[in-house]
């Protein structure tokens, strides 16, 4: 890779003599990766099966979840080692875990779950034996949690202690493949700070669950709407206290994002290198105006790398990564858009081709990315909300809702 900036020194390939020996886990990981090397199958279903197999083996080998505590089934590695871990994985082009959302719910379970919940869910999750989807967004409730309206009513009857869930979620990824949904549901009255919201694990094969695919901006169906019609969920699937779900979701979101940024860092580095190559190949890099954009993108990817290391550092020191994570979230969402804007500029006249046109450069991936990244300032809280958060939580400015309301 051409432009990878400063990396830890031990990361370089050991030279013939006198280089420090890599740690034991790293030797094992390299062996594992070498043994599992191979090209991903072309077929989508086969590719999923292949990735699941890889991660099941990885878990078996004790090489999954570098940052998790050992008790939770992870490797308990330190920050620098986690960086090295992700770099090894990226370099080997190891298949991504088929369900990224698993790593949103898992920290929540580790921190707030009952021992039974941890026992039941974590291992299948790591092995990708069970896939997860997230049920936070609703049609009427984007950033405004008081509008969250999927209801969970607690009933105790002959079948035991249950919730009856009724409502609708939207923008759910992998809903059609997921075995479980971790969801925010309304169990109490709306109020500030997400009052009256609980965190519930819902089996997707339960009666009354309907998944309806949702076509997105690219024309593909990467999302779904999920409808609940009186779905029975055991009360044992409640995570944390009733009505305190939002705080739980929020903390673990923050912590998780900090580590998620790490793997993003290497992915972004690779995409930017690919963009630079594209610009060199098309000749666009000879255009001084394009060079300005390329330099800006390069600066952004370096900032992202630095910020995510800092955020993770804070997490590892036991601090709240909140501010740093908020900044990074905003930078990242706008970076993804800008990156693809530059990419389409680099494509030049070919940018008119659709993302399904097989004669398009790199089979339309940049156009596809352009379209999908239009959501990067919408998903996970809009860019506007992220700016509110920075202004209010980091800079301490008064609420944008106006003091007259509070």
């Amino acid at each position, binding site marked *: 890779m051409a432009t990878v900036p400063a990396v830890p020194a031990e990361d370089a390939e050991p030279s013939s003599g006198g280089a420090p020996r890599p740690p034991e886990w790293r030797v094992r990981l390299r062996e594992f990766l070498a043994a599992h090397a191979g090209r991903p199958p072309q077929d989508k279903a086969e590719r999923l099966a292949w990735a699941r197999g890889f991660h099941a083996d990885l878990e078996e080998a004790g090489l999954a979840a570098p940052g998790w505590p050992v008790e939770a089934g992870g490797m308990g590695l330190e920050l620098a080692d986690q960086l090295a871990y992700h770099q090894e994985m990226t370099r080997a082009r190891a298949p991504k875990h088929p369900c990224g959302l698993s790593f949103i719910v898992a920290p929540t379970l580790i921190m707030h779950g009952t021992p039974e919940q941890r026992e039941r869910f974590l291992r299948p999750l790591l092995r990708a034996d069970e896939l997860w989807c997230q049920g936070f967004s609703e049609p009427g409730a984007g950033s405004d949690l008081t*509008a969250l309206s999927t209801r969970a009513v607690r009933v105790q009857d002959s079948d035991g202690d249950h919730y009856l869930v009724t409502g609708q979620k939207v*923008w759910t990824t992998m809903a059609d493949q997921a075995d479980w949904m971790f969801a925010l549901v309304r169990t109490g009255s709306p109020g500030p700070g997400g009052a009256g919201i609980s965190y519930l694990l819902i089996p997707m094969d339960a009666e009354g669950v309907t998944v309806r695919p949702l076509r997105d*901006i690219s024309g593909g169906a990467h999302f779904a709407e999920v409808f609940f019609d009186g779905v029975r969920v055991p009360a044992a699937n409640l995570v944390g206290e009733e009505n305190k779900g939002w705080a739980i979701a929020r903390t673990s979101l923050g912590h998780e994002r900090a580590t998620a940024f790490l793997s993003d860092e290497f992915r972004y580095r690779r995409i930017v290198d690919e963009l630079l190559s594209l610009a060199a190949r098309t000749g666009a890099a000879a255009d001084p105006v394009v060079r300005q954009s390329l330099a800006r993108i390069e600066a952004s990817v370096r900032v992202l790398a630095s910020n995510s290391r800092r955020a993770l550092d804070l997490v590892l020191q036991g601090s709240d990564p909140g501010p740093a994570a908020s900044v990074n979230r905003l930078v990242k969402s706008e970076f993804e858009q800008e990156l693809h804007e530059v990419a389409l500029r680099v494509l*030049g006249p070919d940018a*008119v081709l659709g993302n399904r046109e097989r*004669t398009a450069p790199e089979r339309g991936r940049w156009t596809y990315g352009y379209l999908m990244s239009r959501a990067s300032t*919408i*998903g996970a809280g809009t860019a506007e909300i992220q700016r*509110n958060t920075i202004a209010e939580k980091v800079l301490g400015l008064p609420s944008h*809702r106006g003091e007259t309301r509070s």
Partner: protein
Amino acid sequence: MTTTVGIEKDLREALGRLLAERCDHEHVAALADGPQEWDRDLWAELAAMGLPGLVVPPEHGGEGMGFALAAAAQEELGRRLAPVPAMSTTAVQAALLASGDSAEAARWLPRLTSGEVTAAVAAGRTVDGWAMADDVRATRAPGGWRLSGRVPVVADAAAAGLLLVAAGADGDPALFLVDATVKGVRIDRLDALDPTRPLAGVRMDGVPAGRLAGHEEFTEVFQAAERAALVLLAADAVGVAAQAMDMAVEYAGTRRQFGRAIGSFQAISHRCADMLVAVESSRALVAAAAASLDDPSEDTAVAVDLAAAHALETAVRVTGGCVQVHGGMGFTWEHPAHRYLRRAKAAESLVALPDRLRDRAAAALVARLDHDNEDN
């Protein structure tokens, strides 16, 4: 002046009514997602209104109203994402008019203005604009020329009965007219970012062609076509942006969050205000550029380039903002927001890129300055 304003107002209103009825979102979506490439019926109705003949003088069956009016009409078409080849057809008309070739003009202009035939420009495409198609060879044949080769991406080719081809002839650049319906012309559809302005590859296998412009007239005639295309594309972009802005404002005024309409938050309302400023600015520049095509001066090229750069870029920003203001809703296939973004984004790189247009305009301004200074 008042008359022109009156005619423009009437035309916009009539077009607005027709399009509201015949080209609503459902219709555009069904057409864009379906197998049909463009809206023949709508084109026929537009032709009945005289639209395809706006820039063509009466002696060739047109209205002779000029680009000022054609741009206004194109803005209305853009507003409704009308899937019709007005831009390409007008560009070819402009080439026919600029060539001074009365035989070809008499042959094609009446059929183009009546709406019977539409046209497309088959040229090489660069960031700076149209160029010769590298892979097409023109050879002399008894009674004319024959063309062979391929042009990878041609807008509106699927609809076209007439192709304007830029190709090398005996080593020199030239422009040819090809009847697209003859044997030997093959049109291969491409997946387009903007399905309302369909694209295709064009292959020609020794097809007969008439030479519209030889080496000497090439630049002037080709420029006339490109400028016409840029102005109409820019006018279309103004309409696209204006409608996207209206949608965003409408949504911002009704959708509520935190107990208030989201349009009461400055993050949204100032974005909308900036949209208005950008759209109004584009419209002003496009109107000036169109007027300058009708009444050419040494400033025409600069006026066209600046207007196109501004309008094309504005449309991308405003339609992107429209998606953003709509939140998750704007990200669905069902919502029309993405279709506006697609039309805007594809237009930006269809003929020439905004930054290259700006570069050309600035260079021309500075060069003119030098020239003026030398004169003084």
